[in-house]
């Protein structure tokens, strides 16, 4: 099933405002409930990470990350054009959120 290629519309972009760690996420759906715009829906399989249904509506408020009760279960993921940059003042090296 996983190898099948479906005819899909373009993926919503940006598509991944957060990255779930399925090893740590307990599927408690706190993020589903705190998100003020319903970016997520609960996974039909209980205990699994929610499904990101409306990623392009995310306004990057971060409440899902702030209120997650399980450390490391959900990681914030700024889209490419919004990733902050900074510079080491001593070395001059410029770095950016990955």
């Amino acid at each position, binding site marked *: *099933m*996983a190898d*099948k290629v*479906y005819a*899909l519309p373009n*993926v*919503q*972009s*940006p*598509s*991944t405002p*957060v*990255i*779930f760690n*399925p090893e740590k996420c307990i599927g408690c759906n706190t993020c589903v*409930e*705190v*998100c*003020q*715009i*319903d970016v997520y*829906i*609960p*996974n*039909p399989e209980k205990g699994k*990470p*929610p*499904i*990101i*249904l*409306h*990623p*392009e*509506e*995310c*306004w*990057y*408020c*971060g*409440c899902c*990350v*702030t*209120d997650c009760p399980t450390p490391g279960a959900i990681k*914030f993921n*700024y*889209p490419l*054009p*919004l990733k*902050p*940059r*900074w*510079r*080491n*003042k*001593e070395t001059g090296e*410029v*770095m*950016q*959120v*990955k």
Partner: protein
Amino acid sequence: MGTWHEYLKAKGTPPEWPYPIKFGEESEIEVDVLVLGGGIAGCWAAISAARNGATVALFEKGDVRRSGAGGPGCDHWCNVPANPLSRVDPDDWAIQEMEALGPYSNGLGFQIQCREDWDTLLEMEQMGGKIRDDDDEYIGVEGRDDETKLMVSPRYGVKAGYSPHDDWKKPGFNPPEKRNNVVLRIWGSTFKPILKKECQRLGVKVFDRTMATSLLNENGKPGGRIVGATGVNVRTGEFIVAKAKAVILSMGGAGYLWHLDMEHGGHSTMYSRNESSDTTALAWRAGAKVTMQERSMLSRIASGLKHKWYTGGADASYENVPLVDAENKKLPAPTQGWEDGGAMFSNQAHIITEIREGIKNGTYKLPFFGDFASMKPEESNATWNMMLAEESTTRVMVQTMNENGFDIHRDQVMNYTFIEFQPSQQFREAARGGGLITDWNLMTSVDGLYAAGTSLFSPGDHSFAASTGRYAGRKAAAYVKSVEDAEICRNQVEKEKERVIAPTKRDSGIDWKELHNGLARVMQYFVSEYKNETMFNLALEEIARIEENAVPRLFALDPHKLMRSLEDLNMIEHAKIIIHAMKERKFSNTTLGIERLDYPENDEEEAKNYLVLCQKDGEIQYERVPIRYWGNMKEQYEAHNKDYTGVYKPEN
């Protein structure tokens, strides 16, 4: 892991809608006071009304726990002149703040804020909100008072407003013993979940994921006394009819009427994603008077082209963070810090011009940086770990940058302010300062209809929303004791239900995004930099075509898309109000953001009035109300609040 297409690939089928679909079903409730919008103002309104003896219900599109522009957090409690460290008189400060913000500011709201937001903050603390450095994390930080453990912000240190004081570059400027101490740093990320809990403790019926769709007037006649409202659940589509003697509007403003692209950088405004003209559209259809609709400005802080909130570093309120060029030369700009009395540079044209010219002639080398590394460790710690970590969408920015190795004591945040300083004229804030006009009870022109927070004209910040919400709740609770029960007009409900559900009866046509973009394009082309009668008429004609050809084809496949579709219809209503108001103002006035090609001169007499408009019998009625219509603020406040009892005393 977690995206929709990953699920589809793994399961071979898309997930089913996870909530029961209830299109066409209806439920009813009855309360004394109904609050529409559960952000900061709405929560405080609900709490206050309940504490004053009313039965209360609250509709919120998201979940009250973290909804609204203030849901994620708040770093400053502004204009709190009644705090024990303040050196200014609350009544004097309200006038100073009103004057600093120009002729169209909301003195009535500032008076309420200045008199009551310290009480409001103490009630926040009473509920468990953190307002003091009780854990002694910030000992030694400038502005921290060791006795009260309150943290004073440099903002408004020597004067109201953000523009620099004339003497800001002189040595010894702004000594600690002369500062106003009128703004406090607070731990606002703790507030919103506590407000929800208090609503629940008080028995407020909280309807999360419920969008208000209309107000109900007595006999179904716009302009008549308010007798309730309708809503729709944005997960199930269930329609709800609420009977209430008073309704408080607190659904914020209009975030993105001019914003064509809401994705990527396109929706970077300082408003919640859910602010979509709901207050204005509902109030207008119910016959209430609105004002300041003609005012539009370039988007602030984060615009359609800029980065989300403060990730640009020092482009907004990075308190005390010096802005330097690529060679660490300090730019000639205030830092909103102690050394400049809390001034900002972003509204200072001459400073911006000086820096921009300096870039071109080589005086200042790009890129620029917010130089955290040059700050005293305790100050950068307070700015980064307290202020930015407590403020709205910057909290997660701090966390993410820390996880990626950013070090405030070593690094400088790259700043894009002078690369992309202004958005184009076509990215505007809708009806900036636009909202409901009210009396001293925060009641609108319609009996039983109140407004608070950003639903008011020329609103202020988080503590303005909190204190005006708290005030409106108190006044509404008093009002409902004085009025008789009234019946809801079933005909009005049926018509509204039909309107709300219409997009769900179609499977194809125009989706909400296309409709939004079509409307935004009209605003960008015909209601932006170049304004005249011809362009306004073109805009109205185009909107009429949208209403005739596109709206009847609007389709919504699920309750979420229905919510966005209904928001679009509210934005269409709001756009028309804005354009009619702009047409009516036959002058140019920079304070109002109106520069008309056909009327290039200001009209000083006309400019002394608010343009107030409402809808009556299908026609728009215009009225001029003198600015400062509220009279003597101190006297009027006291006359209307003889029974005010101060900080809430919880029963044990």
